[in-house]
């Protein structure tokens, strides 16, 4: 780019020098008028010649191409945020169940909530695995609380005596 600019400057400045020398050496009269015309043509050619040889840039001004790229970035960001949000919600709900069980006096040792993506575009608790040596009555108490407060039906609550 700068090579081209440099040679362009040299070409125009060189043409101007030749024209100036010709103008200084040409005697007044008709020859002077012809010299002026020729010098004008030489200068115009020197200015526009590189422009004539230049290829037009192949730039796409199609905004949709850029929007496609940006949509991909946004989708990627959203999916990463959703993954992170799922982890946070699962951890919060696990902690909530353990706290609730403790307040009910149940020796619950573990709770693992699994989330699913709803049609309302947000996560909801789908199933839960509860661990601990709980008596049947305690299990029913915890199970009922989980169903009432987290909306996980008893059919999707799995019990285990030991953590895996």
């Amino acid at each position, binding site marked *: *780019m*700068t090579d*081209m*600019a*440099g040679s*362009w*400057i040299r*070409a*125009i*400045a060189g*043409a*101007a*020098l030749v*024209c*100036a*020398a010709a*103008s*200084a*050496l040409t005697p007044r009269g008709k020859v002077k008028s012809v010299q002026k015309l020729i010098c*004008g043509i030489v*200068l115009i050619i*020197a*200015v526009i010649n*590189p*422009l004539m040889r*230049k290829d*037009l*840039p192949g*730039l796409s*001004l199609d*905004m949709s191409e*850029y*929007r496609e*790229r*940006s*949509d991909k*970035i*946004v989708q*990627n*960001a*959203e999916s*990463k*945020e959703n993954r*992170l*949000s799922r982890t*946070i*919600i699962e951890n*919060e*709900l696990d902690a*909530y169940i353990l706290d609730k069980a403790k307040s009910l006096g149940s020796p619950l040792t573990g709770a693992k909530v699994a989330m699913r993506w709803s049609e*309302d575009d*947000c*996560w*909801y*608790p789908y199933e839960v695995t509860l661990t601990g040596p709980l008596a049947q009555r305690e299990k029913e108490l915890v199970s009922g609380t989980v169903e009432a*407060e*987290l*909306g996980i039906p008893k059919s999707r609550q799995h019990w285990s005596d030991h953590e895996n």
Partner: protein
Amino acid sequence: MKIKRAVLCWLFLILALPCAARAETPDKSGDIVPPKTVEEQAADMDTGSVREALPKDARKILGDVGVTDTDAGDKGLSALYKALKESINGILKKALASAGKILTVVLFCSVATSVMSDGGVRDMVSVGAVVAVSAIAVTNAGTFISLGMDTLYELSDFSKALLPVMCSAAASAGAIGSASVKYAATALFMDVLITAAVNFIVPLISVYIASAIAAAVLPKDTLGNVTKFLKWLCTAAITLLMLAFTTYLEMSGIVAGKADELASKAAKSALGVLPVVGDVISNAASTLVTGAGLLRNAVGIYGFLAVAAVCLSPIITLGIHYLVYKGTAALSEALTDKRMSDLISDIGTAFGMLLGLVASGGMMLFFSLISSMKAVNAL
């Protein structure tokens, strides 16, 4: 006038930077408390890639300033000021050396022609002086054209790392629509600026310099209007491009911002009808949005500093040479004829146009960052 406006814009941005750096919610002790998820979110957004994409010289200027540093604004400004102090003397000395050479030629020419009578020999001595001044100026011009183009390429390359991270952060903070629009607009206009600079503006500046030299060599004002036209064309092209960019960014930002606000309200009302789960989901969402908002501002501030670091040396070099050439032109008018001072002044104007071109690349990224940083939060 345009240079004055550009300088004022830069000053405004530099003064606005520390305020933006402190724009987060502090706790009682005054420190910013980021949510625990911020580190994970930063890794997901790959904020480290912004620092890695920084050109070597700019990275050297910013030193150990990190993307997620809470005091990045203050540290970065200190680093920029230090770099400015270190480089300004060297650049000024170089510019004054060029001015000294030009004034020496002008002085010798003036002394020589003062004892000559009008005619061919006197004209040839004047032409010789113009050639000598042009040789000095063209060496500078060639270097500055390379400098200007290299800076624009560096800005373009850096924007390819910065803009996706900024877009990710803004989208995660809730500005999904406007983040996408702003990324697309900035990426498109950056490409247009580079293409226009390579194929149109820089060649025009070269022709402008050449026609200024030719106008000084030729006995009559043959190319005076061509020179004026080229200057107008060049400044009009840069101004038009910037105007189109800012208008598009603002207009599309307003439309997409409204859509983001509506989406945010709809999400809030959907969460409101859920019981315990709704609270947990809402808390998780607000934690993530707060974290993303913090990261968006941190990336924005780092982007500000990085763009300023990339542009610092070229803008100072071009700005000082612009001023020194204009001053030399004013001094030489007292020593020799107007043609010579017009030539020096026109070459200074060419440096001013290059300065405008580089500054417009930096301003484009600045405007995009400001616009993304002030976008709606989903909270």
